């Protein structure tokens, strides 16, 4: 598996390299851009050596020593986890810098190249995440959540995503949930979505015309445990009986030509199998060439309670608010990677934080003593002294003002063991790289709030929480539109129906246009949908569309894709709000 994935990785890296080479850093004349390129090249050489070096040793062994044993799963996993970590750290820097570069005054050509770097980096990140997840799963590291979730809502969300994948095909998707299946379950919703998306995504890939159905039934009910059977059935091309035995095996999977034709990393089904089995379930597949394939999996769930489901999600915080809340905060950063040093300072400076960055533990401790530091950010993998050790020495300082400083650790990978060690070393919180700016800010705010909060920032934070609560009850105001309809609710209902239809058509058109890189079509479709969004009073969505329109004008595919994926993520909520508002107006 590692070999196949390695090849894949290296080809992704070559893509990334190609876009970097096409990038004219001289034009930019930026220190950071040079750092970016150097760091990338260094890391690629290292990686090449690491991977091929490791393989060569094994090959050399096999030629000299006859009784060579293949690397065990454990060794394989360790290598993967190690290599993944090596890649994620600099990649985090590359992505972060590409993000910052976008905010400079770039020419259209430069912008395109930054986009190319970004999209190549994201592709690479996706593959690395998949590899890492697979290795974690097989090593038993991956944790499973056990929380209450709404199965119907989850299936609806999954189906919405799938609908957007089939608009250019004549495929119908059906759902059938038996009435005795509990609505609220206790388990890991994100893992379940992942299984659905993988299996349904596969089905969609292989069906051009026909049906895909998802059905859920209870096969057994004992002591509060419901054994649920999920079936995903398609009328696609089917799998031959020889290949059927291999579908869940990561590197023997099907044949290479299927691989080439339909793409994918080849790990999807083996991840699915691992996820199902780790939850105490089983999975099986039946198929007939030309007729279709059915995947069935059983997972035991306990019935949950709707009251335990948190109702609101964290809301993005604007840069301005970040400034108001964090401005002037003194932050000491222990980080040895030069690229990440630059990145974190840029990020923190955006919020007007006063930032001190060091790779040297002694220097860091001295800064802590002399500069009234509010928060410490700690990279765990430091060269001289590990982040754990530095944290311990901070906690053992005599001056309580200094020893109680909040410490947030960040690392590119994090095991349960690391977590324990964090608490043992007095680390308050941690962030997994690559983190989003929002995650960073939330962690910082949380610590700052506990530390010392000025009256003004306390007020702002309260406003923040209040508006978050409001968002939970966010509504779409359709009163104006109802007035335009002279109060005729049937007319409003008809308009809403047309609105939804327009949106579905829009999503379909954009999907096709993105895959064909048809910027004119993207522009036209985005332009058209704006009027409807304005009528429905959905400003946030409209802004995303304006972004897509601009992206289409400048022919920036990455911008379009980014805005569009946000649109896809936000639209379902708006639809729910519109329906709610309609119900409310109907009752009046």
């Amino acid at each position, binding site marked *: 598996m590692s070999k196949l994935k390695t090849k894949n990785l290296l080809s992704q890296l070559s893509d990334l390299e190609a876009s970097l080479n096409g990038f004219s850093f001289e034009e930019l004349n930026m220190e950071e851009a040079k750092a970016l390129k150097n760091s990338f090249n260094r890391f690629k050489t290292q990686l090449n050596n690491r991977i091929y070096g490791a393989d060569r040793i094994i090959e050399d062994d096999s030629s000299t020593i006859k009784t060579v044993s293949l690397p065990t799963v454990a060794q394989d996993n360790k290598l993967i986890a190690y290599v993944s970590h090596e890649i994620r750290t600099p990649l985090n820097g590359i992505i972060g810098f590409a993000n910052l570069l976008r905010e400079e005054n770039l020419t259209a050509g430069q912008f395109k190249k930054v986009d190319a770097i970004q999209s190549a980096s994201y592709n690479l990140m996706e593959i690395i995440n998949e590899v890492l997840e697979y290795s974690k799963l097989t090593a038993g590291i991956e944790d499973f959540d056990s929380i209450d979730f709404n199965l119907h809502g989850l299936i609806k969300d999954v189906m919405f995503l799938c609908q957007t994948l089939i608009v250019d095909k004549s495929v119908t998707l059906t759902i059938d949930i038996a009435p005795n299946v509990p609505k609220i379950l206790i388990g890991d919703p994100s893992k379940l979505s992942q299984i659905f998306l993988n299996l349904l995504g596969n089905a969609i890939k292989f069906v051009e015309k026909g049906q895909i159905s998802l059905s859920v039934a209870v096969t057994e009910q004992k002591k509060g445990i419901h054994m649920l059977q999920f079936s995903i059935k398609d009328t696609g091309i089917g799998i031959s009986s020889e290949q059927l035995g291999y579908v869940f095996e990561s590197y023997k999977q099907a044949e290479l030509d299927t691989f080439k034709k339909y793409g994918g990393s080849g790990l999807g089904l083996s991840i699915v199998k691992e996820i199902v089995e780790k939850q105490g379930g089983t999975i099986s597949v039946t198929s007939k060439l030309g007729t279709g394939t059915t995947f069935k999996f059983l997972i035991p769930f306990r019935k949950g309670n709707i009251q335990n489901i948190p109702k609101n999600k964290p809301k993005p915080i604007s840069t301005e608010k970040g400034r108001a809340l964090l401005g002037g905060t003194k932050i000491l950063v222990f980080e040895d990677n030069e690229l990440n040093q630059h990145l974190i300072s840029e990020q923190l400076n955006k919020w007007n934080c006063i930032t001190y960055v060091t790779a040297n533990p002694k220097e860091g401790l001295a800064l802590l003593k002399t500069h009234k530091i509010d928060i410490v950010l700690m990279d765990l993998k430091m060269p001289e002294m590990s982040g754990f050790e530095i944290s311990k020495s901070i906690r053992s300082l005599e001056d309580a003002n200094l020893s109680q400083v909040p410490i947030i650790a960040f690392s590119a990978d994090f095991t349960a063991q690391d977590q324990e060690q964090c608490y043992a070393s007095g680390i308050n919180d941690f962030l997994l790289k690559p983190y989003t700016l929002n995650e960073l800010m939330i962690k910082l705010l949380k610590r700052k709030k506990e530390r010392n909060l000025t009256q003004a920032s306390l007020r702002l934070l309260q406003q923040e929480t209040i508006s978050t609560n409001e968002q939970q009850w966010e509504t779409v105001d359709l009163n104006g*539109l109802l007035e*335009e*309809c*002279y109060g*005729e609710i049937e*007319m409003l209902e*008809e*308009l809403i129906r*047309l*609105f939804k*239809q*327009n949106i579905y058509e829009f999503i379909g058109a954009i999907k096709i246009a993105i895959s064909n890189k048809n910027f004119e079509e993207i522009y*036209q479709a985005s*332009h*058209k949908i*704006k*009027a*409807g969004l*304005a*009528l429905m009073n959905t400003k946030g969505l409209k802004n995303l569309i304006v972004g897509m*329109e601009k992206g289409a004008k400048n022919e920036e595919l990455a911008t379009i894709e980014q805005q569009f994926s946000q649109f896809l993520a936000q639209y379902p909520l708006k639809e729910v709000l519109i329906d709610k508002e309609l119900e409310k107006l109907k009752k009046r």
Partner: protein
Amino acid sequence: MNKRTILLADDDALLASLLNFRLEKAGYTVDHVLDGKEVKAYLSHSMPDIIVSDIMMPYFSGIELINHVRKELLSQTPIIIISSAGNEENVLSAFELGANDFISKPVSPSELLVRIARELNKATI
């Protein structure tokens, strides 16, 4: 007076549906067409009292529509163009070619009614 007829050309079913509703409530007869081809077909057999057309339409843009009405059909039927921000240049050429008025998106039905009435009044005087 006979009911006045409005030809409404817009491929956005949502907006057109709202406008249709409001215009009919105001006492007009509305003929709604979805694209440029349908506009041409319609105009080949009848001429409305006023044309309200989106500037961006499949097959045959609002600009081409004005050209067709003024240069080929030699008709002075009032034409109101629906446009949106970012299309200012097109609106200018629409006026040059003989459009009578324009309204920008998001269209307020009440505003459109006022503009239609004004054009129709001018036309009758």
